[in-house]
C-alpha cells in the first residue's frame, strides 16, 4: 500500500519575529514494513539555515532558523510511504507465550539488541510510575501469564477504561492526572501504556505517526481531516518491537504510518521552536493521509 501524506503546520504571530530556531521531527523514517520513498519539507518564509540530521534514536530531524523579520511560519511536509505487512505470527505463537516474568529476565542476557532495548525500561518525567500505575498494570500481568496476551489485554483495558476526549489534557498534563480523569487523547493513552509496562520492568517506547481514516462508504474523504497519531511499542525477546494502539484497540498494521519514536512524546515532538517574543501566536495544523 502506498500513501501520500501532507502535514502542514502554520503559526501566525501577532507581532513580527526577527529570529526563530526550530526543530521538526516530521520526516518519516524507514523501518520494518515501511519504506519512506520520498519526503520534502517546504518552509515559508525561506529559512536562512537548514540542518538535517538523525537523532539518537535514528529519527529524521530538520533544524531550521529564520533570521529575518517574519509574521507567520508554515512548515509543510509531503511524504510518500510504502507500507507492507510483515508477518510475525509464527514468532508470536512461539515466543509470545513466554511468561512475562521470564521474558523480562531474558533481557539481561548479554545481547546487543537486549542491551539496546533496556534503555526503554526506566521511567521518564512523562511516564512516572506513581498513582497506581503498577497496580493497574498488574491486573493484566498476572503471574505467569503469556507476555503477548498480557500486553494485548493491557491495550484493551486502556481502550475501555479511558474515554477519548480532546481538550481535557495538554502536553503538560501529568500522567497522574490522566489516571484520575480517565480521559485523554492518544498521546495520554500511549504514555499510560508505556508507564504500565515500564513499571513492571518491560521496555516500551512511544511511537509518533499517522493513521489512515476512511469516510463512511459512499462519502468522499475531505482534505486535511486526518491528524497526527501516537501509540506504544513493546520489546519482546525473540520477537522484537511490537506496536499496540490503545486508542483504537488494534495492533497496528498497514493503516499505521510511523514517523519515529523515543522514550516519550518529548523525544519526538513533531515541531518545536524558540522565538524571541512576548506576544501571542495562533496555530493551525492539518494532516491529510490518502492512498496513492
Amino acid at each position, binding site marked *: 500500500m502506498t500513501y501520500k501524506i501532507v502535514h502542514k*503546520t502554520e*503559526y501566525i504571530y501577532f507581532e513580527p519575529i526577527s529570529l526563530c530556531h526550530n526543530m521538526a521531527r516530521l520526516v518519516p523514517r524507514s523501518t520494518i514494513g515501511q519504506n519512506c520513498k520520498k519526503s520534502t519539507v517546504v518552509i515559508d518564509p525561506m529559512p536562512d539555515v537548514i540542518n538535517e540530521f538523525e*537523532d539518537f534514536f535514528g529519527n529524521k530531524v530538520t533544524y531550521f532558523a529564520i533570521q529575518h523579520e517574519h509574521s507567520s511560519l508554515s512548515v509543510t511536509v509531503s511524504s510518500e510511504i510504502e507500507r507492507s505487512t510483515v508477518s510475525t505470527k509464527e514468532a508470536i505463537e512461539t515466543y509470545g507465550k513466554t511468561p512475562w516474568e521470564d521474558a523480562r529476565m531474558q533481557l539481561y542476557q548479554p545481547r546487543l539488541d537486549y542491551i539496546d532495548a533496556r534503555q526503554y525500561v526506566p521511567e521518564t518525567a512523562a511516564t512516572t510510575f506513581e498513582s497506581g500505575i503498577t497496580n493497574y498494570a498488574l491486573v493484566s500481568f498476572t503471574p505467569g501469564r503469556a507476555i503477548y496476551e498480557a500486553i494485548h489485554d493491557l491495550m484493551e483495558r486502556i481502550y475501555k477504561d479511558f474515554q477519548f476526549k480532546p481538550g481535557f489534557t495538554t502536553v503538560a498534563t501529568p500522567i497522574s492526572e490522566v489516571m484520575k480523569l480517565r480521559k485523554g487523547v492518544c498521546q495520554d493513552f500511549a504514555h499510560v501504556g508505556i508507564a504500565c509496562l515500564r513499571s513492571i520492568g518491560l521496555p516500551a517506547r512511544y511511537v509518533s505517526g499517522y493513521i489512515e481514516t476512511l469516510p463512511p462508504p459512499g462519502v468522499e474523504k475531505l482534505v486535511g481531516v486526518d491528524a*497526527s497519531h501516537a501509540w506504544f511499542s513493546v520489546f519482546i525477546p525473540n520477537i522484537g518491537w511490537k506496536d499496540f494502539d490503545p486508542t483504537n484497540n488494534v495492533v497496528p498494521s498497514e493503516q499505521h504510518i510511523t514517523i519515529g519514536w523515543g522514550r516519550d512524546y518529548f523525544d519526538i515532538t513533531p515541531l518545536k521552536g524558540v522565538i524571541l517574543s512576548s506576544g501571542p*501566536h495562533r496555530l493551525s495544523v492539518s494532516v491529510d493521509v490518502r492512498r496513492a
Partner: protein
Amino acid sequence: MIATRQASLFQNYFSSNYSYNELLGEDGSLRPYWQTFFESFSHLGPEEIQERRVAIHRFLKENGVTYNIYGDPQGLNRPWNLDVIPFLISKDEWTTIENGLVQRAELFNLILKDIYGQQQLIKNGLLPIELVYNHPGFLRECAGLKQVDKHQLVLYSTDIARSPDGKVWVLNDRTQAPSGSGYALENRMAMARIMPELFDGLKVKQLSPYFTDLRNALTSMATNQTQPRVVILTPGPRNETYFEHSYLSSYLGYTLVQGDDLMVKDNIVWLKTVGGLERVDVILRRVDDVYCDPLELKEDSQLGVAGLMQAVRSGNVKIANPLGSGILENPGIMPFLPAIAKYYFNKPLILPNIASWWCGQPKEMKYVLENISTLIIKKIYRDSTVSTSVDGSLLSEKRIQELKEEIKTHPYMYVGQERVTFSSTPSLSDKKVEPRNALFRSFLVSNNDSYTVMKGGLTRTSSGSGNMIISNQLGGMSKDTWIISPETEKGVQNTKIAFNNSLQSQSQAQIQSQSQFQLQSQQLQLDAVPSYKSVLPSHTAENLFWVGRYAERFLGNARFLRTVMQAIIEGSRLQLDTDKITDQALLMALTHYTFTYPGFIGEAGKAKFDNPWKELYAMMFDATKSGGLTYNFALFSRAVNAVRDHWSTDTWRVLRSMEEHWIEAENIQHTHFKMIAMLDDLITSMVAFIGLNRESISREQGWSIMDTGRKIEASILLVNMLRATLVNKYEDQVAYNLQEAVLKSNESLVNYRYKYKAHLQLPLVLELMLLDENNPRSLIYQVFRIKRYLESMPHNPLNMNGLPEHVSLINELYDELKGMSKEELSKLDESGGTYENLDDFLADMYTYLATIPNAISKTYFKHTQPQRQLFTADKIT
C-alpha cells in the same frame, strides 16, 4: 622545636587523640616541613597572628571574595573564610597524587568519549546501560558528535581526602563545570600578601602553570585559530560561585557573559555587544549542560542559548567542558573503574576509590539496604541546589525506611559509599590551633598531550571538629594548599603569581603591589594573550547604565532629604509662619521627588506635617518603601554586583564600607542630627564611588554608558525637583526659601552667589539650573554631555535608517533647551498662581528624558526580549 610561646596555641591539639595526624611522620616526630612552617609561624607571635587573621579577613572582604548560599536571604555574597594555616603536602606524597590524578583524568576522558561514541564499555559489559542512561547528565543530543581532539574532557577536578592511616582516597569527581580554581588562586594571593613570612624556607610550588595551560587549552580548542574569542558563560550573580566567574574573567582576560548575551545565527555563536555582533569560538561554561540550550535541552531554561547544540554540531564553537560531560559526575561509576582501568591501560588505579556499591545490581542493593545506617547514600547525579548525599548514621528510623523504599523503587539511582574518617590537619580557630577534617580539591586541565595538575588546590575544612560532611553550602573554612619541595632554597620565595596584564581591573593593583612580582613570568604571559579589542556585552552595558542611574538617584535623594531635614530643624527653631509654609512645601516636594507616595501628599499627608520625622525615618530605613533610600540602595547594590568585574579594589572598599555603614546605621539610636550625619557620610562615599570609577573603570565604553545613565537620572531628578518646588507662586520669603533649598540640594548656592552676586530671584535661579552651560549642575550641561555620549556610541549598522532614535531625541531636546530664555520661563499665568510656561516646559523635558532610555535600550540592550518556547499541536490526538 615548637617554641614555648606557641604552647598556648597548641593546647589540647595532640591530646585530642584525633584521627591520622597530618603533622606527624611515621616515627611520631613532627614532619620537617611542618617544623619549618611552625618556626616561622611562632616567630610571628600570637598577637601578630591575630592581627594577620583580621587583615586576611579584610583583604578578602575588600576584594569582594564571596560565596553565595542558596535559600538563605542573608546568604547572598557571604564573605569567604580563609585559615592562616595552609594545608601542606610533601613532594613525595604529591608525586603519587599527581600521577593518580592524571591517570584518572585520562581514564574519565576515555569513558566520556566512549559513552558518546562507540559505547564499547556498555557493549562489553564494563558499564551497565542503566547507570549511564538513567543519569540526567547523559544527553542523547550529544551522542555521535565528531570528536576531533584527543581530550574531550578539558577540565577535571576531584575531591580527595586522607583516611586515618594516611591513604589518599578520591571522594568525588567533577567534570561538568568544576568550581574552585579561582578561590584557590585568591587564597594564594591573600596568603602571599598578608602572610609572606610563612613561605620562608619552604619551596612552595606555584599555581600559575595551571592557568597558563588553561589559557592554552581554551585557545587551542578553537577551530578558528586567528585570534579566537573565548568567553566565560555564567548563570549570573545569584550563582553560588559568581565571584569566581568574574574573578577568572578578569584574571584570564575573557569576557564574562550570560546566556542572553549570546545568540546563534548561521550556526555560529555571537556575542551581542554595544558595537554589534562578535563571533565566539570557545565557551568556558559555568552553566550546567542541560541548561545550555532551551531548544534541544531543558526547555524552560533562561540561562542558555537557543541553537547552541546546532553550533556545536556544526563544529563552529567549542565548549569546555563539552556538553554532556555531566554524565561522569556519577558516583555509581566508581565501582566499575578498576575494571575499566584494566581494560584501557592494563593497570590498576593509582588512587583508590572510596568503596561504593551501586544499587542497580541486586547483590549490591542488598548490601546497601542491610548496611544503610553505616553508609553514605548518594544519588548518582548531583543537583547543585539540593543535597543529594546523606549520612545514613544520622537518619531517623522513619527516614531510613523511606529511603529504603526509594532505593527499592529506583535502585539504579542510588549508590552506597563507605563512611570514611578523614585525617585531621591543624586549623587556627579563635586563638587555638585545633584539628579539623580536611577535603582537598584538585584541578586538572588538558595540555593536549596529557593533563596539567594545579600544584596546589582548594582545601576546605569542616565547621566543627567532629563534623564529617564538608560543604561550602554548610559553612566551614578554606585553606591555601602548599605543595612542598624537599630541598629548601635560601632566599627564594616562590610566592609570586604570574599574571596577565591586559583587560585587567580588579586584581591588578593588588598584585602589582606585591614585591615578589616576577617580571619575567609577566612577560611570558603577555605573549599568550590575544589582543582583540575589548568589547562590552549588552547585558553588562545595561547593568552599568543602571549603576549610573541608581547611584545618581541615591545621591539626589540623599541630598534633597538632607536639605529638607536641615530646613525643618531650622524652621522649628524660629517658629515663623513662612518657615512653616516652606517646610510643608518642601515635604510635599520630597514625596513627589522620591516617588514615595502617599508620603506627605493628601489629607493623610497633611497630618504628618507636625511631626514629619517618622515619615522621614521611613524614607531612610524602611526597606519595603519603594523610592526610599534603603530600597534604592538595594537596587544600586544589585546592579553593582551584577558587573562586579568592573570595580577596582579601591572601589570595592568604598562599596563595602557603604554597605557596612548602612547595616550599622539601622541599629543605632537616631537623633535628627545623627540621621543628617549619616546622610553626609553616605553622600561622601557615593561621590567617592563615582569619582573612583571615572579613574579606574576598565573599559572606556563602560564609563560612557554608566555616565550616560547618571546624567539621564540627574536630568530627570532636576526636572522633578524644579516642578515640585518652583512652579507654584508663593509669597516672597517662602519662594526665597524654596529657591535656596533647590540650590543647596544641587550644591549650586555658592555658584549662584559667585556668579550673580545678588539676592535670589527666580529668573536667575532658573538660568543657573537650566540654561547655564558652564554650571556642571545645570540641565543643559547634562543634556549636552548625554548628546556627546550618544553620538560617540557605536551605531548598529542593522538599525541605520537615518539617525538612531535616541540621537534625534537628544538633539531635539538640546535644541529646545538652547532656544529657551529665562524671561519666558519666569512668566506667570493669567491667574498669577503658577508659572505655567515653566511647568509646560519642564513637562516637555520630562517626556523626552523618559523616552530616551527606552530608545537606548532598544538599540543597545536588545537582549531584554523574552525567549519563548513554541510547540506544535496542543496535543497529538
